[in-house]
């Protein structure tokens, strides 16, 4: 059994002629909690999709617990950016979480009582058990995000990938999500993509900075130099006393959060 959860060697991904990632080498140990930061378009989500096998790899290799992404899907849970999802779709929280219990292939299938029990337990675990039968259209951003985490956990993964799970959620929900992830990290490897520069250092074990290539990979302490190199220009971590990133050399209105 390998103790490397994710092994990425010289990974390059192109969208048409445009490079999204070039020459990325990254190892994530089993049980690690890796945070990935970087500017918009820096390739963070693309890296997650390469790990999931959702984008064609132009060069290099990706291995999950020693297997190719296509053969390791049962090991991986994924929490996508919820802003891109259809929140008006007629489905309840419980039904969404149950989709994580679907079996591969396409044979007639009914969820068992055990599946439903697991889904209820997961909703309780993320703190929204009382909303199980509520339509997703009636959820707040934080509740929606917790539901997506519960769905990812329904797969029973060893590796959990999260794409900006604290974006557009309030401070209370954000803290709850970070608390939940710390708890989950006791049993699984976590890779977290985020723009939350202030909180990231205190949450993760290791940090990777992406801007088309891997700018930094190491201890999670985030220095001004790392951030400035990453974003290509000087950046303030605090604006108006709240964790915003503001380009120092740009005028008003250039806030990049």
């Amino acid at each position: 059994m390998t103790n490397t959860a994710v092994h990425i060697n010289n990974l390059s991904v192109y969208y048409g002629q445009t490079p999204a990632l070039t020459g990325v080498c990254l190892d994530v140990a089993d049980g690690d909690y890796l945070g990935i930061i970087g500017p918009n378009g820096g390739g963070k989500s693309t890296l997650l999709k390469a790990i999931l096998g959702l984008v064609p790899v132009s060069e290099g290799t990706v291995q999950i617990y020693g297997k190719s992404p296509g053969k390791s899907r049962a090991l991986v849970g994924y929490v996508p950016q919820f802003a891109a999802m259809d929140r008006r779709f007629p489905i309840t929280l419980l039904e969404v979480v149950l989709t994580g219990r679907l079996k591969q292939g396409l044979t007639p299938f009914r969820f068992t009582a055990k599946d439903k029990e697991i889904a209820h337990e997961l909703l309780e675990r993320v703190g929204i058990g009382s909303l199980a039968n509520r339509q997703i259209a009636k959820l707040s951003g934080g509740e929606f995000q917790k539901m997506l985490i519960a769905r990812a956990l329904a797969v029973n993964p060893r590796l959990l990938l999260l794409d900006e799970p604290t974006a557009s959620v309030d401070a209370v929900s954000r803290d709850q999500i970070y608390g939940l992830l710390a708890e989950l990290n006791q049993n699984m490897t976590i890779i977290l993509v985020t723009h939350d520069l202030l909180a990231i250092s205190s949450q993760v074990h290791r940090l990777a900075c992406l801007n088309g290539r891997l700018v930094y990979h190491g201890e999670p302490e985030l220095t001004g130099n790392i951030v400035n190199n990453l974003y290509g220009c000087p950046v303030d971590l605090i604006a108006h006393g709240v964790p915003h990133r503001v380009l120092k050399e740009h005028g008003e209105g250039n806030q990049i959060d």
Partner: protein
Amino acid sequence: MIKALFEYQFLQNAFFAGILASVVCGIIGVIIVEKKLVMMSGGIAHTSYGGVGLGYLMGFEPIIGAFLFAICAALGIGYIKRKGGARSDVVIGLFWSLGMALGILFIALMPGYPPDLSSYLFGSILSVTKSDLYLMISITLIVILVIVSLYSYWKAYLFDEEFALIIGLKTAFMEYLLLVLVAMTVVVLIRVVGIILVLALLTAPAATAGMLTSNLKNRMLYAILFGIVFCLAGLWISYALNIASGAAIVFIAVMCYFLFYIVHTFFLKLNRKSIAAATGKS
């Protein structure tokens, strides 16, 4: 009309055709509305006109030609969309026009007087034959079987296709299968409302049902019921006033949608106002 329904075979055929069309519309209509495939369904429907023309030219049943063209269009549009490199609305538009153009060309190549194609373009539920009914029954059963037996998979696919792929569902196969089901549904509807009016019967019952319930399964059941009401009311008006049946069905369907939309919006605003008032008081 009820007395006539028991007397005349053509009215009985029309009645059953309306029921069958409502069932497939209710199921597939809700899916295409939720999956935002309405224009793609329009493209598939209009491409089938080429098959109608080919059927007349080559001397086989035009509805079989429509069926083959609709399947080819579904798979062709789906393939190009999936492979990328072209915008799906462009591809849909091109298939749409090509099918219509081929239909016109095939008819023009026929010797002698051209046949009357209005029943395929605008539907003619009163001229549905026994063989049409058998084809419609077969297609309806296939649609019900495929959707009901794989319902949990369809729900996962419709809500989040990317996640469905990640957990190992064959999403490419599901997409092609769905498009083939749309093509089959279009063929059922061609005899009822015609190629040009197909979109209204696919979307109006589903969209109206969407205003009444937030449960996908109930939405399909409501859409089937709405479809039945629209088809039978249109049939009755068509019989009573001796007007085109397809147009009557579509007119009722679209008017009911707008009526529900107005009432729904009114109650939504009323509800918001009462919530705002209650919040203000507390």
